[in-house]
């Protein structure tokens, strides 16, 4: 009798605890929703064929938009190369979408500054339109669950440091966490 009572008590307590947890995290839920919308289901054309952002679910994606004529983009490539090298094991994927209308210009750029990350091509700019790119270069950080958590417009030393700090934070988030 006592054992059954104890089991019943524990399950009631557990349910209450779960409710408390849920209610306290509700505001966080709400925040997360407005701060981190799910990334649009982009389909990008790369040298390796068609790729989807969802192909990389579980990894942290740095989605960058660049063009050969953009000065700061030139500065960002060595940094992105460095990031890809250092964080591949931690599951960082960099996808840099080129928005040049002239394919030759982008290939010329890549000859000068080769990339060790994925390059996609979108001369029409549809993916940039979908992502609401407002400056060049512009990059987005997508977490392991596929939500857009940060965006960064332009590139310089200060921005570089801020962005890398965000990347490290996202890499440290495990895929299945009790924190939403």
């Amino acid at each position, binding site marked *: 009798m006592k054992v059954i009572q104890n089991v019943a008590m524990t399950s009631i307590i557990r349910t209450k605890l779960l409710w408390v947890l849920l209610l306290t995290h509700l505001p966080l839920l709400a925040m997360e929703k407005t701060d981190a919308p799910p990334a649009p289901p982009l389909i990008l054309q790369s040298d390796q064929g068609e790729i989807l952002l969802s192909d990389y679910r579980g990894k942290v994606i740095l989605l960058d*938009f660049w*063009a050969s*004529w*953009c*000065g700061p983009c030139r500065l960002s490539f060595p940094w992105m190369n460095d990031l890809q090298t250092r964080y591949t094991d931690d599951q960082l994927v960099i996808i840099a979408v080129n*928005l*040049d*209308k*002239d394919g030759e*210009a982008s290939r010329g750029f890549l000859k000068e500054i080769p990339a060790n990350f994925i390059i996609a091509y979108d001369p029409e*700019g549809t993916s*940039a*339109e979908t992502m609401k*790119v*407002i*400056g*060049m270069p*512009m990059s987005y950080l997508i977490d392991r669950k596929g939500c857009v958590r940060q965006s960064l417009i332009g590139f310089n030393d200060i921005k570089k440091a801020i962005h890398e700090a965000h990347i490290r934070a996202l890499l440290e988030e495990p895929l299945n966490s009790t924190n939403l």
Partner: protein
Amino acid sequence: MKTIPVFVMALLISACSDLGVKPWDRDILAREEMQLNHDPIEASLDDHIYFSKEASSGGRGFGGGGCGCN
């Protein structure tokens, strides 16, 4: 007299909000020769010549400084 140009500018500014291009369409505008003042050295040398030989000056910008030539 001064309020008229400011008013015209204000009208123009509001009309301007519909014009423009997407950030990734600025490839041509990014070219050096498409900058409004892409050769400031030549512009300032010319400004100096014309300031010395004519009655008008500036318009494009200012701060070129004075000389005893006019």
